[in-house]
């Protein structure tokens, strides 16, 4: 069990360090808190060990591949970079046992590759333990009678806290950079204008180089149109239902009903999307198809309507719970004023409360739209794959998220326009949802400040 070994390699020096530090402080006498010394030495052992572990996991594959590539026989080693990468990919596959070796040389290379991988697996716990031991020794050296262990520990912990607080920023930057780079590579092959305004989307046919129109099938407008259609259907369900239930729960519902109904609505947001997808494909899509047939309409078996309806139900809580908060936050004075002038409750709600809460409600609707655009599993399971430019909700359409998932699942080389297109769609998706989220958050915050 290398995982257990790894844990031991990281944690054993830490425990040792802790007890050593404690013992030292106890032995040295004086007015010290031995725990601080223990924690100090323990941290000194922990941090280098973790750093080496992370580095090792991040770099192992590359180093092993490079070493195996360097050991390739002369005939293979002289290849240009891309060919070499292909060869190494194949070597890795042979080593994993998924592909049979074609030649003697490849088999040997694979064996070498596998051996290197085995050494790396063995060396990893050793390297981690060595780093931890080095940290331990360094920490031990710093122990003096006048050493301020507590403030040292606190400085280290504060620094760790600071690093952790940057994780979210790093993730955002990571998303932007990773998606942006691949998108730029995509735009080297397909012009942005064509991607944004082209009317034909058939990336699957653009695999072969010699194909007619191999670069002419990345017009994403039908994909956007499909996304828009499903989003509109979803919002047509979620906006009225969500708003009405928010109004009911905030203004009318007796306390007991509210105590049951509010968690019930929130339950909708807690059900995994894959469950909705299964439900949409198994139950709702046939219902829509049969209903259409009954009305004399032909509905595709993977209609936009089925996916949109189910998605609409899924995002009801995103509308209702935020709108509920916003409506409850409208000052009672406004309500009392209106009621005092003789308006009924519904008139008060429609003419006073809702207009007052409008910015917040708009924010909640925007957030719901951004959810609907980014929702993946429901449409992957219940909407189609073929991009079609249509406004008929009974047709099968495809969406941005479906295309991203289908273009990237399964094995594929990473330089084809087909896979890069997924990143271009991803960048667009990220930007659109980012803008909507920021506007929504801004509106909601402004609104809260208005009444607080």
């Amino acid at each position, binding site marked *: *069990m*290398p*995982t257990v070994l790894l844990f031991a390699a990281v944690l054993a020096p830490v425990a040792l360090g802790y007890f050593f530090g404690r013992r030292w402080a106890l032995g040295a006498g004086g007015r010290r808190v031995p725990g601080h010394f223990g924690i100090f030495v323990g941290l000194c052992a922990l941090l280098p060990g973790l750093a080496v572990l992370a580095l090792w*996991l991040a*770099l192992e594959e*590359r180093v092993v591949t490079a070493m195996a590539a360097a050991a390739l026989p002369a005939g293979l080693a002289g290849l240009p970079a891309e060919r070499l990468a292909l060869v190494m990919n194949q070597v890795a596959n042979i080593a994993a046992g998924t592909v049979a070796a074609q030649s003697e040389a490849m088999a040997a290379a694979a064996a070498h590759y596998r051996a290197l991988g085995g050494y790396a697996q063995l060396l990893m716990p050793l390297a981690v333990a060595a780093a931890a031991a080095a940290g331990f020794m360094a920490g031990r050296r710093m122990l003096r009678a006048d050493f301020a262990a507590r*403030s040292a520990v*606190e400085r280290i912990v*504060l620094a*760790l*806290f600071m690093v*952790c*607080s940057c*994780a*979210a*920023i790093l*993730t955002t930057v990571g*998303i932007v950079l*990773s998606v942006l*780079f*691949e998108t730029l590579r995509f735009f080297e092959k397909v012009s942005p204008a064509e991607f944004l305004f082209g009317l034909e989307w058939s990336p699957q046919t653009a695999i072969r180089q010699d194909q007619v129109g191999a670069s002419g099938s990345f017009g994403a407008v039908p994909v956007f149109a499909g996304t828009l259609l499903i989003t509109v259907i979803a919002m047509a369900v979620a906006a*009225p239902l969500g*708003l*009405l*239930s928010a109004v*009911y*729960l905030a203004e*009318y519902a007796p306390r007991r009903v509210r105590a049951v*109904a509010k968690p*019930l609505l929130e*339950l*909708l947001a*807690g059900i*995994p*999307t894959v*469950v909705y*997808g*299964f439900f949409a494909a*198994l139950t709702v899509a046939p219902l829509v198809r049969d209903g259409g047939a009954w009305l004399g309409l032909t509905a595709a078996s993977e209609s936009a309507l089925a996916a949109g309806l189910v998605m609409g*139900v899924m995002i009801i809580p995103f509308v209702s719970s935020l709108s509920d908060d916003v409506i409850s936050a409208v000052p009672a004075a406004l309500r009392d004023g209106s009621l005092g002038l003789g308006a*009924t409750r*519904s008139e008060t*709600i429609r003419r006073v409360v809702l207009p007052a809460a409008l910015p917040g409600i708009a924010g909640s609707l925007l*957030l719901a739209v*951004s959810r609907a*655009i*980014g*929702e*993946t599993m429901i449409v992957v*399971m219940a909407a189609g794959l073929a991009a079609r430019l249509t406004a008929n909700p009974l047709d099968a359409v495809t969406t941005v998220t479906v295309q*991203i*998932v289908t273009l*990237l*699942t399964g094995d594929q080389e990473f330089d084809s326009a087909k896979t890069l297109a997924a*990143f271009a769609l991803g960048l667009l*998706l990220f930007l659109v*949802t980012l803008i909507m*989220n*920021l506007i929504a*958050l801004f509106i909601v915050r402004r609104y809260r400040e208005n009444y607080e």
Partner: protein
Amino acid sequence: MNDASQTVSVVRAGLHKRRAAERRFRLAGAAAVAVAALFIAFLFTVIVKNGLPGLWQTRILLTVELPAAEFQGRGEAALKGANYRKMVRQSLLGLFPDATTRGERRAAAKLLSEGAPYQVRRAVLADPDLAGGALTLWLPAASSVDIFHKSGAGGGKLSDWQKQKVAQLQAAGRLRTVFHRGFFLNNDSRSPELAGIRGALAGTFYTLLVTLMLSFPVGVAAACYLEEFAPRNRWTDLAEISINNLAAVPSVVFGLLGLAVFINFFGLPRSVPLVGGLVLSLMTLPTIIIAARAALRSVPLSIRQAALGMGASKMQTLFHHVLPLSLPGILTGTIIGMAQALGESAPLLMTGMVAFLVNTPGGVLDPATVLPVQVFLWADSPERGFVEKTSAAILVLIGFLVAMNLLAVIIRAKFQKRW
């Protein structure tokens, strides 16, 4: 006087209409809530109705003849290599002497699961003395027989002849339905009656383990820094905006990040729980940070001031007083975050956790899949028998989610202090 009475009469005239409008409006609100509740009821009915039968399995009682001639040679190799398929088939045909044509014999053989010979083989390997004799045991029926028997209605794929044979078996008491432990103990399979969620459960465990071990410490540390130590400047504002925004970024985008950074850039292997867990921990991080900050904020200032006044450092105040007091809130948030991660599948599809795997993963670097992705895979399978397996897997998934959320509720109710 005249004016006033006119006003009153105008108001009165409209009152009836306005009251009706009021009732309609109120009803519409209640109806909206009812529609949502009905949808939930419908959804759960469908899933439970489809899924509960998936936890049960139809078996056929069969006496398998194990003629000594089939075990020529001695020792393990003969036991392992014997043609159990043929022996099971012969014994099964023994039950149907009227199956004479080739087609009928083939149809009869198809009543039993493809996995039946393996079960016989296991039994013989466990008890080598059986070789040469006979063995009576309940063997799993084929998926189509299973569906037919459990639903009692027209089970699509069986021919009339097969249905008649199934009825015969039932009349002879050779058919029974038992709780399907294999659903939890087997790995994935192409045959619905043999497929189980063990591999997916193990994969889920390792993936969530990675997620928890990364997102909990990092999230709590970030929350502590932002809430207790951070100066208010551009940098912390940026951190705050990124956290709020990340909470609303579509999950596929996290999948793209995982693919581009962890797999392409760092060269980590595809399909492993380590990568899946990394991606999921980035997704749950905002949830945990936001919850932890709220929990820290709810600890009253007087506690901090008392500790500081007694000479504790800020770090000691945090670790000795503020953190323990806010721990219930932090744990609640973490559990909810983990529940979200448990239900997530889109980013995992893109980091390759969708492979068909027949082995149980043994660590964070073994190829694996997770429960929701297993649901997705089964939902995609054309075999009719996978519908109930998919629903049953969903039941298990929802069971875990309910348990986690209940735990969160209990922790909140029991340990959280109101100041």
